[in-house]
């Protein structure tokens, strides 16, 4: 044992207990050997180091163990060069080597802007225009761009995502949201026969974008231009999902981030008005409601309030279908609602396809 005398041990235990502020009873589960007596333990002998000027103390330091009669050595304070991470204390913030005086606000995937779209527009010096640009809408309405049996294919996609793709009776949003977006993109890709330039695209999932480093991918990447961002809200519980307004704000900021990184790559780090604007699209969905966004970055000069502004076209709250019945609704042995979607709107998929084909047609 570390301490030989029982009284010293008890004293230490009592000190420990007093330090914790407990009522003096031993810790739960702590058994103490020995007979308890009511006599107070004698105080420990004070450890004094005597300094007599002019005399060199003879200590037991060289003997490496205590020797009664020799003086107590004074060792230099030990400075451990390594602390375990559990006990490490962080230096105060202003002593950190990377400290800057100006605060930098970080926006990530789970940030919900309280003011929503208004805050996002102010942060990115952007002007909002309701509805998609005419070029994209003309692509949507052009019958040459439509896939044959488009409505039937989209209905099949909805059925597949909401009902067929898993053995459960009612699949959850976490599974059906990515399935529906993947299937819609696959349906759009079937147009590759008509527009071969669609083949020169690649999809990157879950990658990190960081505009402070001014790069999304490394140099030499053969697909450096971001085309469309697909943001999915696939949490099962409604409080975990973003509200439509917050989702639109997140889409604006991420599209802006991509466009800014692209602009820095093309035109350098200095803030200026761009001769050739950078356009990035974004689609946000929770599996049923779609938000479409086209952002045009005209300037990287964000410090001033005047001057050329960036533009964003938003088409919000486009329902693909109102509701999907996974099991038929039967009232008094008659099928009131069959299995399938209600309130299907083919217009939403046309806009989705138009955004996909934009730039390649």
């Amino acid at each position, binding site marked *: 044992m570390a301490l030989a005398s029982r009284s010293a041990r008890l004293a230490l235990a009592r000190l420990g207990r007093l330090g914790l502020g407990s009522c003096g009873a031993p810790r739960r589960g702590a058994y103490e050997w020995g007979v308890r007596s009511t006599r107070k333990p004698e105080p420990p002998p004070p450890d004094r180091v005597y300094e007599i000027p002019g005399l060199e103390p003879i200590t037991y330091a060289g003997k490496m163990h205590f020797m009664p009669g020799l003086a107590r050595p004074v060792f230099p304070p030990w400075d451990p060069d390594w602390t375990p991470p559990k006990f490490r204390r962080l230096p105060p913030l202003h002593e950190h080597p990377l400290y800057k005086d100006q605060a930098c606000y970080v926006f990530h995937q789970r940030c919900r802007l309280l003011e929503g779209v208004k805050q996002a527009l102010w942060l990115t010096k952007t002007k909002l225009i309701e509805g998609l640009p*005419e*070029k*994209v809408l003309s692509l949507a309405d052009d019958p040459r761009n439509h896939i044959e049996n488009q409505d039937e*294919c989209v209905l*099949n996609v909805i*059925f*597949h995502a909401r*009902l*067929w*793709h*898993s*053995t459960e009776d009612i699949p959850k949003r976490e599974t059906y949201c990515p399935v529906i977006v*993947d*299937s819609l993109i*696959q349906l759009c*890709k*079937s147009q*590759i*026969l008509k527009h*071969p*330039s*669609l*083949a*020169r*695209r*690649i*999809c*990157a*999932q*879950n*990658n*990190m974008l*960081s505009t402070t480093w001014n790069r999304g*991918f*490394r*140099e*030499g*990447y*053969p*697909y*450096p*231009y971001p*085309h469309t961002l697909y943001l999915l809200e696939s949490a099962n519980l409604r409080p975990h999902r973003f509200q439509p307004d917050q989702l639109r704000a997140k889409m604006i900021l991420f599209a802006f981030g991509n466009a800014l990184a*692209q602009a820095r790559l093309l035109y350098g780090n200095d803030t200026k*008005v761009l*001769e*050739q*604007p*950078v*356009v*990035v699209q974004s689609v946000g969905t929770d599996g049923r409601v779609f938000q479409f966004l086209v952002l*045009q970055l*005209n300037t990287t000069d964000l410090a001033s309030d*005047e*001057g*050329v*502004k960036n*533009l964003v076209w938003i088409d919000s709250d486009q329902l693909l279908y109102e509701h999907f019945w996974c099991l038929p609704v039967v009232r008094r042995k008659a099928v009131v609602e069959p299995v399938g979607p209600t309130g299907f709107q083919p217009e939403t998929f046309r806009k989705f396809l138009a955004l996909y084909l*934009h*730039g390649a047609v």
Partner: protein
Amino acid sequence: MAAARCWRLVLRGSGLSLHTAAEAAVKAPEVTGPDVAAAPVARYPPVVASLTADSKAARQRRVERWQATVHAAKSVDEKLRILTKMQFMKYVVYPQTFALNADRWYQSFTKTVFLSGLPPPPPARPDTEPAPALDVVALRDAACDCLLQEHFFLRRKKRVPLYLEHEAITSPFLDQLVASLTGLLSARNPALANAALDCKRPVHFYWLRGEEIISHGHRKGRVDALRYQINDKPHNQIRISKQLPEFVPLDYSVPVEIPVMNCKPDKLPLFKRQYENTIFIGTKTADPHCYGHTQFHLLPDKLKRERLLKQNCADQIEVVFRANAIASLFAWTGAQAMYQGFWSEADVTRPFVSQGVITDGKYFSFFCYQLNTLALTAQADQNNPRKNICWGTQIRGPLTVVASPVAEHRLRTRRPSGHGSRAQPLRGTWDLPRPGHEPVSPASAGGLSTTAPPGKPEGTPMD
């Protein structure tokens, strides 16, 4: 007996009564008129074995009644429900397994013959024009792009440690590869353009094969069928709406013998469990894309090449690939056949064909499977000469990434503008005023917020 009780439950549920056959036999002669004189009229109910007796004939009659309900089921869902609703202890077969010589065991479970190499090419039809030449360079470029994107170019939040490399890098690489190759090859194969692509969707299959004598329990000494279930999760699969053409005719006789294992499947090791019997191809029966094209499987870290070499199992590397292919493709084709209404007593009338690619990220192996028969139960297999066939190639590879400064420079200079740029940025919808128009000062370009946009300048290079 448990079996008798179960059959009785089935019978009660389906609403058939003991006297149905007798009544039908009695009523039939009244319907036919003058033709009756030719056939002898039975004036008493047919003499058949009892339904409830404790005898082999009674059991046979009960089994036949159950099979009749399956034949009489109106929809495929109902048929599958009747076939899978009774749960008994069954062997759980894992396609990706570390068991030694698992491919020979799986061949015996699924009555499959393994042939090395690829199946014979289809005979060239004179009426169709020859297919356009395959643009191998473009395909190789696309594969390189996918590989480099995942391994090198993509920036991730944290550096991926070695034990997570498999799921964080190899898995997305395979996703991208499948998607880009499907896109590029859809020009040659229009079926691929309309195909459905599934990522990590489950595939289940339940079948019966062989018999055993029950060793202990209240049914000791009786004969019981062996049941198997595969619950597979291919990494990617392509499903199409039209069936792939057969490689060889349905009754093609292969001279190779199927391995016969002389001991119980428990020796593999294979373990029994009782849970839901499911048959699933990746979607439910209502989906129009109900035929399979290709499956892609990614072998887990546990079965990687280096580990097997360290365990002195160098010959098992091929076995791992083959066992995975046979089990997964049999399950998929079997489930596709059952979705079309075939089962062990109603054998397939056309072969079901699918393909598979098994990889561990670096080494690839290609397989083709043709399902010729679903009749694997002891009763149906008595006079069944058909065998399922699996073709497989040797392991090809490795596919490696070299990311060095030399390679980076080579990549950067690999894209001369003469080849046409690989990617196009999106052009702005509202172009800013260009020199050539009347000069607009940037300050008053805030007019972008109020009035109509400036006219599009002519001669803008839209390339």
